[in-house]
């Protein structure tokens, strides 16, 4: 008995967490996926009726807006955060004497809640007293910057705030990557008389492919989960102009009382994330030969 116990202690210790994960992650995903095939409205129903919720979703203009917004937001957010992050990392990598303080400044937004970020940018971008009035005071009388309340442009304000918050993080990743490039290769290139920009373009940046991948994964994951930022910045509005799948799902679940739509939209989100994360995790955790 004690032998058995001794042998299985590691598994027993792991068991509670594993059970929790199996129930609260996989069990719940299963539940949501199951319910997305029922007629559930205000209360969950458990009779499978086929993909009617998905058909309804496909015909919903609001969902279409949410998906379009996700595409716009996702692409611009990832692109700008990566470009700015990479530029900052390269600039900081030039033996800058004040690197420490600068890095601290670039990265602090990451410590903030998206609600705080959203609140701050909502104030800065408000058309009455924000940036718009700053420029008007400077003499640009006709300057207008009303993206926040313009249904066609409001989603871009989410991009602005999102990039502001996350680009420093990308910088930190890239900077770590730049620092881990083998110094000998760089010295060899310098001895060969290759210029600094050239060294970055042809040697350093290509060697950071894994970091591009990691940043892409993290940023796309942030984009899909984006919820708080939209709520705090635009509340999904004007109307539902800045809805993302995450806010759509929340609205269906908690304000519209449409469990079927909430479950099916959540399942779609889950599938998008899975398509991105699973190959990544697989490549990261694949057993390597020792």
């Amino acid at each position, binding site marked *: 008995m004690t032998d058995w116990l*001794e042998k299985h202690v590691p598994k027993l*210790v*792991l068991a*509670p*967490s594993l059970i*929790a*994960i199996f129930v*609260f*992650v996989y069990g*719940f*995903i299963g539940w949501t996926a199951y319910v997305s095939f029922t007629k559930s409205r205000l209360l*969950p129903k458990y009779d499978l009726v086929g993909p009617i919720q998905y058909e309804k979703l496909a015909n919903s203009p609001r969902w279409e807006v949410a998906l379009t917004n996700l595409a716009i937001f996702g692409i611009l957010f990832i692109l700008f955060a990566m470009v700015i992050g990479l530029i*900052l990392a390269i*600039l900081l990598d030039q033996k800058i004497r004040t690197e420490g303080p600068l890095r*601290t*400044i*670039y*990265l*602090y937004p990451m*410590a*903030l*809640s*998206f*609600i*705080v*970020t959203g*609140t*701050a940018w*909502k*104030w*800065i971008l408000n058309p009455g*007293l*924000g*940036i718009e*009035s*700053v420029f008007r*005071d400077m003499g640009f009388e006709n300057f207008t910057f009303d993206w926040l309340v313009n249904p066609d442009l409001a989603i871009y304000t989410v991009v602005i705030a999102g990039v*502001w918050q996350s680009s420093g993080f990308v910088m*930190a*990743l890239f900077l*770590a990557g730049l620092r881990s490039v083998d110094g000998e290769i760089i010295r060899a290139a310098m001895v060969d008389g290759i210029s600094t920009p050239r060294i970055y373009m042809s040697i350093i940046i290509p060697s950071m492919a894994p970091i591009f991948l*990691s940043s892409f*994964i*993290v940023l796309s994951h942030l984009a*899909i989960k984006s*919820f*708080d930022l939209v709520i*705090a910045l635009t*509340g999904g509005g004007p109307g539902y102009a800045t809805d993302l799948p995450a806010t759509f799902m*929340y609205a269906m*679940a*908690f304000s519209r009382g449409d469990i079927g739509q*909430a479950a099916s939209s*959540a399942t779609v*989100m*889950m599938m998008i*994330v899975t398509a991105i*994360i*699973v190959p990544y995790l697989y490549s990261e*955790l694949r057993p390597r030969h020792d």
Partner: protein
Amino acid sequence: MTDLSLNDAQMDERASRNRLMKRVALRLGLYVLLILFALYYLMPLFVMVVTSLKSLDEIRTGSLLSLPREIDFSSWGKAWSSACTGIQCEGLRPYFWNSVMLSIPAVAISTLLGAINGYVLAQWRFKGSNILFALMLFGCFIPFQVVLLPMAITLGALKIAGTIPGLMLVHIVYGIGFTTLFFRNFYVTIPVELVKAAKVDGAGFFRIFFSIFLPVSPPIIVVTVIWQFTQIWNDFLFGVSFSQAGTQPITVALNNIVNATTGVKEYNVDMAAAIIAALPTLLVYVVAGKYFIRGLTAGSVKG
């Protein structure tokens, strides 16, 4: 024309001076660029702080970026103790304490579980343990929308819906993946021979954990605690989904203050409230930035 009369030494000198000038200009440009970026990142914080110190009158008449004519702390007091989050007007104070009471136990429990899980997954592997780790890790990445509905039902069934312990449970469960990842990646860097030596010395599973692994863990404990604290403090989705009037965390209360529709819009109070909500995590970042960054990067890159 005059160039022709210059001798070699002079030409060399001129060339090197040109090179020097070019280098200085380049460095200067570099620093200007870096400082512009710094201003871009600091601007919102600056705006928040100055706005919170202005009176409403000055906000309406003055500029967004100007310093306050006279410093007025009253909006801070209001944000802390009397701003309205809806029908209640008690400021952020009760919600601040809600967040404190929520995050401390949740951070402690999820860190502890992560430590012991990481220890097993790094040093006591068994058949299938890598797959179990991958499954746990995947749990970190799911969009939490997919668990909101069943979680709401489960919390209801457990009779902890809308309570702080209920919210705590949610944070612990969905924090385990990351905490396990942190500890596991830390413990795999410790040679397996250490466990072997201790086994030969006669120590068992728990003794090895408590006398050998835990004492080397402070760096990763700090990283994990900071990460979990930031995550839980800044969370909004779980807070807004699983709390009710008296038990809301600070992020939800902040959002309610900002979006309160009654009365005059008090931007200075909004900004003061936002800063108060951000203060604990900002403080952690300033004090232990190194560990904060390590957590961020560890969460995305395999150690």
